[in-house]
Each structure stands twice: as C-alpha cells, then as structure tokens.
C-alpha cells in the first residue's frame, strides 16, 4: 500500500472534521477544552462497552464462531446505547456547569452557549469515534501488504475512510440535535437520534457490501445534516445571505466591509 492510499484515506476520513476544528474551534480555548472533554466521555463509554463485551466473551463458548459474532453484534448495540447515554450525561454535566457559572457571575450570558457546546461536544465524540475506528487501519496502510489477497474486498481502506467521515459528521449532527432535544424536552427527537445511530451501526453489519451500507449511511448523514441545520437556527434565507456575503450581522462581527 502506498503513501497515496495513506494520505488519501486520512484526508478523506478526517478532512472535514479537521477543517471544522481549525476554522471554528481552534481559536477558542474554551471550545477546545470541551471538545477534549467530549472525546473523553466517548472514550469512557467505549471502555464500559468493551468491558461488558469482554466479560461476555470470557464466559461464552470461544469456539463457536456464530456465537462470537452474535456477541459482537450485541457489543455494537450496547456500545451505541452507552454512547448515547454518555452523551446525555455530558449534556447534564454541561448544563450543571453552565448553571453554576451563571449563578456565580450573575450575568445574563454565558461564555459559551449551549448550542456551541452541542456542536463542540458532538465533534469531540466524532473525533474520538473516528480516530478509534480508523487510525489502526491507516497505520497498517503505510506498511507493506496487499489488500484483499484472500478474496476480501479490495476497497477496504477507501470504504473505511468514507465510513469514518460519515460517522464523524454524523456524531456532530447528532450532538446538535440531541442537545436541542434535551433543551426543549422533545423526547421523540432524542429517540430519533438514538435510532438513527443504531441504524447506521447496524447497516455496517452488511459490510463488505459497501453499496448497501455506505449509501444509506450517506442518505442518513444528509438528512441529519439538514435537521441539525434547522435545529441550530439555520434557514434557507440565512443560507442565501451567507453564501452571497450579504449577512450583515456576520460581516459586522468579522469587521468586513460589504
């Protein structure tokens, strides 16, 4: 495998996320901290899920392949549920912290809004999830080898990279929608987020039939993106103003003449 594969897959997987990080988060120290805290929460959820899976494997029949696969599927579902639980826990923690700060400062505004926190925490979850999914694969792609020599799919790296990109962006969208749903007590939206996460994970069970898994994932990605856009306050009008550089508030805030 060549350097082209390595760099290509790395940029496919992490390009949008790194761009988002550099342009919107890197300059604000508070956001960076909450991003890393979000990544930490995802990590803890993964740890718990792995622990349960590990224990279940130890007490199971190690020779039966179907049982192992079943346990793996169980592990995936459990991990998804735990991730969403920890997302909720992170939301609660952030709310408490924000309320505490608000009470202390007697101020009207908080240094970071709950929407920004939703975005940042979603991206933190996404970064960690994507990194854990794909970094080992990328490291292997630098070394020697032939992809699919035993009859497996030859598009392993590429599909992994695309799937990772989808997952990272999905986590970000899920974060935005999730926090908003918690804020407005819309539990159906919460359930929809959890369900879509489960659907995306279960779609990957069809790998290596990438058409069956990647295409629906990207459709869900697009839909979630639109939902998150509207949740965050976007609209077609905003979009038009932004794209034609006529958004006065934004220009003022960035001191650009128009």
């Amino acid at each position: 495998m060549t350097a082209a594969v390595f760099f290509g897959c790395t940029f496919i997987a992490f390009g949008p996320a790194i761009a988002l990080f550099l342009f919107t988060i890197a300059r604000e120290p508070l956001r960076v901290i909450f991003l890393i805290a979000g990544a930490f929460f995802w990590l803890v959820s993964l740890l718990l899920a792995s622990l349960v899976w590990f224990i279940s494997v130890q007490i199971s029949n190690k020779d039966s392949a179907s049982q192992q696969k079943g346990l793996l599927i169980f592990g995936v579902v459990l991990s998804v549920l735990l991730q969403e639980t920890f997302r909720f826990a992170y939301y609660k923690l952030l709310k408490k912290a924000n309320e505490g700060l608000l009470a202390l400062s007697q101020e009207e505004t908080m240094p970071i809004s709950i929407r920004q926190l939703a975005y940042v925490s979603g991206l933190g979850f996404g970064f960690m999830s994507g990194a854990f999914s794909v970094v080992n694969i990328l490291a292997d792609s630098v070394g020697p080898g032939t992809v699919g020599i035993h009859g497996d799919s030859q598009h392993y790296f590429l599909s992994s990279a695309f799937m990772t990109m989808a997952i990272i962006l999905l986590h970000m969208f899920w974060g935005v929608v999730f926090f908003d749903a918690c804020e407005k007590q819309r539990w159906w939206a919460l359930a929809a987020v959890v369900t879509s996460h489960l659907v995306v994970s279960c779609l990957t069970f069809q790998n290596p039939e990438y058409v069956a898994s990647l295409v629906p994932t990207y459709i869900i990605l697009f839909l979630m993106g639109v939902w998150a856009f509207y949740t965050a306050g976007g609209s077609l009008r905003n979009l038009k103003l932004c794209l034609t550089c006529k958004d006065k508030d934004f220009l003022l805030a960035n001191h650009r003449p128009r």
Partner: protein
Amino acid sequence: MANNAEDVENNMVSIKQDQQESNTAPEPIQQQQEATGTRVRSRGGSGPGGGDSEDGGGGSGSSPEQNGQPPTSRPSRGVENEEDEDEEMTLKYGAKHVIMLFVPVTLCMVVVVATIKSVSFYTQNVGQGMIYTPFPEKTDTVAERAVNSILNATIMITVIIVMTFVLVLLYKYRCYKVIHGWLFLSSLLLLFFFSYIYLTEVFKTYNVAMDYFTLAIIIWNFGVVGMMCIHWKGPLRLQQAYLIMISALMALVFIKYLPEWTAWLILVVISVYDLLAVLCPIGPLRILVETAQERNEPIFPALIYSSTMVWLVNMADTDRPKRSSEEAGSPQQETQEAAVASPVPSSPSQDNGGFTSSWVRQQQHQLGPLQSTEETRREIQQMPSARPPVEDDEEERGVKLGLGDFIFYSMLVGKASVTAGGDWNTTLACFVAILIGLCLTLLLLAIFKKALPALPISIFFGLVFYFATGNLVRPFMDKLALHQFYI
C-alpha cells in the same frame, strides 16, 4: 560508585497562575495568594558529585502572608459589572491557560511518540539498564519479575527521596553554587550528549550520510543556543522549544532504559510521592517552598516551562541555584531547567494568549537529574506580585509547569505506544486521559489556589486508560475492524 553518577531529580512542577490584578476577584485570599509565588522544580542529583539535589522552591500557595508585597490595585468591589466580567474573564482566562499548557504537552508527546515509532533504537532491549534498576525483568516466573520490579521501583524512589531531602538541606544552608554548577553540567550533558545520540540514531534510521564535521557544527550550535536560551536570555518560543525537546529526550531515555513493569510502578510511586511531598506538612517540597518564602527569594525552578515571559527579580542573582548533574555510567540523564523569573518593572502586559511583548527572562537554571530518579513536583502557585527589592509589583499572567511533568507524561504515552503492540488506540486514549487530568488539575488550581502536584491525576487517568484500553478495548476494536463494523 564513584563512576556512577546518580542524579535524582526532583521535578517539581509548579503551576503558577498569575492573575492580573484588575481581573482578580477582589477577594482577600486571592490577593494574598498572588503574593506568593514559588515554584517547585525538580532536581537531579549526581552520584559522584555528592548528589546535589536541587530544589526549586515552590511557593506554598496556602500561606496567606505575602512577603512585603503590597496588594496590587484591586478593583472596587462595589461594581457589579466588574464582578461579572471578572467571572467570565476568569473562566476564559483559565481556559486560555489550560490551552497554553495543552499545546506544549501535546507537542512533547507527539515528538516522543513519533520518535518511538520510527527510531527503533529507543525500543531495543538493553542488557543492563540503569544503575538504579539493577534487578532484571527477564526472569522465569511472573512472581520473580514482580518482585524485581518492586525492588527496582523502591530503589529509585528511595534515591529520589534522598535527593530531595539533600536538596532541601542544600537550599536551607544556601549552597547555591553547588546547585548552580550541577544544573549547568547536567544541562550541558543533555543538550550535547543526548541530542548527539538522538541525532545519530535518527540518521541511522533514515540512512542519512553525514560527516562528523557537519554533525559537530550542528550539535555545537544546537547545544550552545540551548544553553543560552535556558540559562540566560533568549526568545520565549525558542526557550519553550528547547524545554520541550529536552523533556522529550529525557522521556526517551527513560523509555529506553527502564524495564517495563518497573516503569509503570515508578510512575505510580512518583505520583504518590508527588502528592505527599507537595501537600503534606513535612513534605520536602513544601518545606522548600516555605523556606524560600521566608527568605523572600524566588525559588529557583529546576526546570519550569513557562508560558509567558516572566518578571525580573533584581535580587535573584545571588541566589540562583545551578545544578549540574554528572553522569558516570549510564547515559541517562535528566536535566531540569529552572527558570528564574523576575518581574519586569515595565508596563503591565495584557494577557493575550500568553503573548507578552515585554518580558525578560534572566536566567534559567537547569537541573539535570541522573537516570536514577526523577521527581516531579508540581506546585501551583501564584506568583508573588512583588519582591522586596522590586518596586514594581506587576504580575504577568502565565502558567508554569515543571519539566518533570512533561517528562513523565511523555514517558507514559511513549510507553503506551510501545508496549501495547503498536496499537494507536491505546496511545490516543492515554493522550486524552492525560490532557483531561491536566485540565482537572488546573481546575483544582483555580479553585484552591495553592500549590498542587501535577502528576497524580493525569498519571492515574493515564494508567487506568492504558490498562483498560490495552486489555479491554483493543480486542473489541480489533474484532470490529476485522468485520468492518462501526459503532
């Protein structure tokens, strides 16, 4: 033992938080705490040299009295807006400082991990480790190995404790020249010898042909500029870069020469010792800090990474400790640098991302601990806003972290990237855990406003995540990647 120089370094990390007067909450306790600023630093001892232990005094944040420091101008209490702004500013200011420490810690870890992954020299087995870890770990039974590693760790921590106390004694009896010389020699060794080894190994790895003349010129320039930046004056970024490089070199040395179980045990033991030494009333670090406070001297930081330039202390010249560590047999060496900051009698600098255009740094002391032990202490203190000889009580915002902390963090992450079978997930997990630990420590610093050890929380998180990720998450993720399942 004459040939074996053993340096015990106590790295005392002090995190100082300077608060701008105008932004500090007008609480008396804060003001008082501002006055104390002592840093604790780590020191290294050298065997043949009689083991000077250097000890940067760390200021104890808990002592309310400030040495002759007039309270800086306090904003009037009655203005509500100021309080609100203060609160928000405090939060943002605190976040900025956290990031100012995240970046160098991340850089150091990246350098160490990159080196470990590419240069195989640092992961090759050594026949005989350091003099401080005489019990081999290549034993037949697990129990024997455990016992050996416990003995190794005990030896190391004993050396560290002894060195720390020697340092405290030296400081108490004002043997500054000894410390000064030791520090100087140890940084010399680190900047020249260890970087020479590093460079040659990198050249070997990438098959770069280089003649000795060019190499000599490169090493000479690197070393001399490093000595100047660290011990004298230099641009802040360059000094920071050198400190990061030195910490990375030291961490690599540790990774190479400490056997595996010993390394983990040492991390645990040093964290516990850090905790005790900084917080207990009889802890040597605390004694050091208090002594320095009584004498109203700046505690010479062994090796302190400073995010902003610091203030000048006029009287610091006479009691600047320098240490040089000598290394006899083992190539390990730790150098610690102590930075002495003196308040700049100039206009107040506004803290903007740690960039202050008007700082002058006078000297930094470098302490080089030998391979045997290294102690890192971390104290979080607030800088004294004024020293008696200095009229200006301008405080600059900045955060300081001892180099020993850098070294141990990087050592943990480096070991994680080696021993987990080359698994990147473990490395990433340890990295995030250490950063979160650092964040929590700084949060505690902001809450308690006294010297705190930087090691315990981060190392605890790092170790938990290392073992958990390596043993639980890795098989799970491997299986998932095999089937290309995504969670």
